[in-house]
């Protein structure tokens, strides 16, 4: 019999027992072990050189990252700290009839429960204040928070959430943005229209442009909802002090404006709020507005103890912002040489349940939609609409990846139809120094042509197929 397995005992048990018996090693976990770190400061050359600009200087936080010593919020523990958890609605559109927190409050280890009705000003948002901190009367999407718990352990907080009973009366819901634009569609925020912002960019004479075109192409493009997936979930630690000031260590990319929102929801003077932006474990636009900060501040106020809240990965998906799905209709007229003469674009953005950064996304998408091309006749109209889905907000590119997918796909369609090389058709159309943008702006420092040529050179585009 052949045996290819050598079973070894995991650890020499005898040695281990001896080790355990030695008093010196009988250290209890209360004794925090010294964490070794290099005490000698080796500074890479790249950080010591002048001039500083242009150096491949190492990051000021790089060494701590590699040593595992960067303190993210979940790594911070304050004495007496409690753990908060938020109950999520799980229904997309409903009236909240009743929230019964009594069973949760009675649980040993539960120190406080909070509902939406206890939030001094229960609304926030960077453009429109259409988002409740915790839903109180109505649920707008399934990831809405409806109650929160602070408990001595995270597990107790989680189990307490199960004991909170919320009674809902279902309301009609709408999930498709194009459906939501119809007059007959259920209103997400009645009595307001589901179309909550529009934007237009118009230049030249579109009809004449199309009339003068040798060829006109049309295509619809769509994109999906995407999550930022920062590796560190949203996290906040709140501590209310005896002077009535609250300090929030939080994963927020824009603390000054965040503080304004927090002050508004808590109905407090701005100078009573201190927001500390720790090193944030990834943002990509997803951590650009407040989420649970007011909840934790109020739980800390209620309990007189520091309270920490860290989103679960699930909450990260269902209750933080996401990337806007787009429906994009492109119509482009070109001359025989592939020079774009006219372009009409219609954009419909799925805003989800709240505005969040939709206005900004709408604006940027609308302006950028024609692409980096000289087009005399342009008309872009863009709409963003409410649906009863996870709210969409800022995400790396604010609508630009969506429209770029459309205008660049469209460009290749045109190139293929006219038998022009994709690089060549772009070179015939792109902006140059002094070009006029679709909003009439004279552009400076324009290097799109250089970027095309540089990338083509690096790729070996002109050498032909690999």
């Amino acid at each position, binding site marked *: 019999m052949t045996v290819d397995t050598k079973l070894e*005992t995991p650890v020499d048990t005898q040695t*281990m027992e001896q080790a355990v018996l030695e008093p010196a090693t009988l250290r209890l976990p209360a004794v925090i072990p010294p964490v070794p770190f290099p005490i000698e400061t080796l500074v890479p050359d790249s950080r010591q050189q002048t001039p500083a600009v242009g150096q491949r200087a190492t990051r000021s936080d790089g060494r701590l990252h*590699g*040593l595992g010593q960067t303190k993210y919020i979940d790594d911070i*523990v304050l004495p007496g700290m409690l753990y908060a958890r938020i109950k999520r609605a799980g229904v997309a559109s409903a009236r909240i009839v009743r929230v019964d927190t009594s069973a949760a409050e009675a649980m040993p280890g539960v120190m406080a429960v909070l509902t939406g009705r206890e939030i001094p000003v229960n609304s926030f948002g960077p453009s429109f204040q259409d988002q409740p901190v915790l839903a109180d009367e109505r649920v707008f999407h399934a990831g809405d928070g409806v109650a929160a718990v602070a408990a001595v352990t995270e597990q107790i907080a989680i189990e307490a959430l199960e004991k909170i009973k919320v009674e809902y009366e279902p309301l009609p819901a709408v999930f498709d943005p194009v459906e939501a634009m119809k007059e007959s569609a259920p209103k997400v925020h009645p009595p307001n229209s589901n179309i909550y912002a529009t934007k237009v960019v118009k230049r030249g004479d579109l009809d004449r442009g199309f009339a003068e075109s040798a060829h006109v192409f049309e295509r619809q493009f769509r994109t999906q909802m995407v999550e930022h997936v*920062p590796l560190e979930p949203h996290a906040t630690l709140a501590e209310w002090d005896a002077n009535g000031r609250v300090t929030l260590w939080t994963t927020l990319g824009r603390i000054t404006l965040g503080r304004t929102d927090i002050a508004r929801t808590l109905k407090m003077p701005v100078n009573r709020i201190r927001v500390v932006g720790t090193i944030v474990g*990834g943002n990509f636009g997803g951590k650009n507005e407040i989420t649970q900060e007011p909840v934790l501040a109020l739980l800390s106020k209620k309990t007189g103890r520091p309270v920490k809240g860290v989103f679960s990965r699930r909450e990260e998906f269902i209750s933080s912002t996401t990337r806007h799905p787009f429906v994009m209709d492109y119509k482009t007229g070109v001359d025989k040489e592939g020079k774009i003469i006219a372009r009409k674009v219609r954009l419909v953005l799925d805003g989800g349940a709240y505005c969040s950064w939709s206005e900004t996304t709408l604006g940027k998408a609308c302006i950028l939609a024609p692409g980096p091309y000289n087009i005399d006749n342009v008309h872009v109209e863009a709409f963003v609409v409410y649906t009863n889905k996870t709210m969409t907000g800022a995400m790396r590119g604010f609508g630009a990846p969506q429209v770029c997918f459309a205008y660049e796909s469209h460009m290749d369609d045109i190139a293929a139809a006219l038998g022009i090389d994709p690089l060549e058709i772009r070179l015939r159309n792109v902006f140059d120094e002094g070009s006029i943008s679709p909003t009439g702006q004279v552009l400076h420092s324009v290097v799109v042509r250089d970027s095309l040529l540089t990338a083509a050179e690096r790729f070996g585009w002109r050498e032909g197929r690999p």
Partner: protein
Amino acid sequence: MSSISMRVNGEMRTATVAPETTLLRFLREQLNLTGAKVGCDVGDCGACTVIVDGMAVNACLMLADQADGRDVLTIEGLATRDQLHPLQQAFEIHAALQCGFCGPGVIMSAKALLDETPDPTVQEINDALAGNLCRCTGYTKMVAAIQDVARSRGAGTVKLPAPGNIGRA
């Protein structure tokens, strides 16, 4: 409650834990070793990667009790008082980490790889990192940093630690 005893970063640690405590919670909450992160808590992201008996594992998918009698190495155990681990050095020089949250896990995966395969191919490095999600870097500079360490060590010049035991056949 379970009484457990394990070698953590070379030092014997004895503790009492609730049986359902994961190794990750134990390291973070009882030993204050917060280098291993909670990124998903279900073994998808790898931010909690530590090395147990020579093998990279997700500390969130192991009970502390299961590590009883074993040898656990965390990111805190790599550097000495005097020196960064070569991987930590290379990651710093290459700016291989951005937000840094995935970093400790990535470096532990890389260490486990290099202990086993001192001169890995790019494919082998990518395979070793596939359990460590990163959203910032595209993994590109991590791979370069790991290659740097492998090259600078040179074939056979590094004494590899004894192979581990978990599931080893």
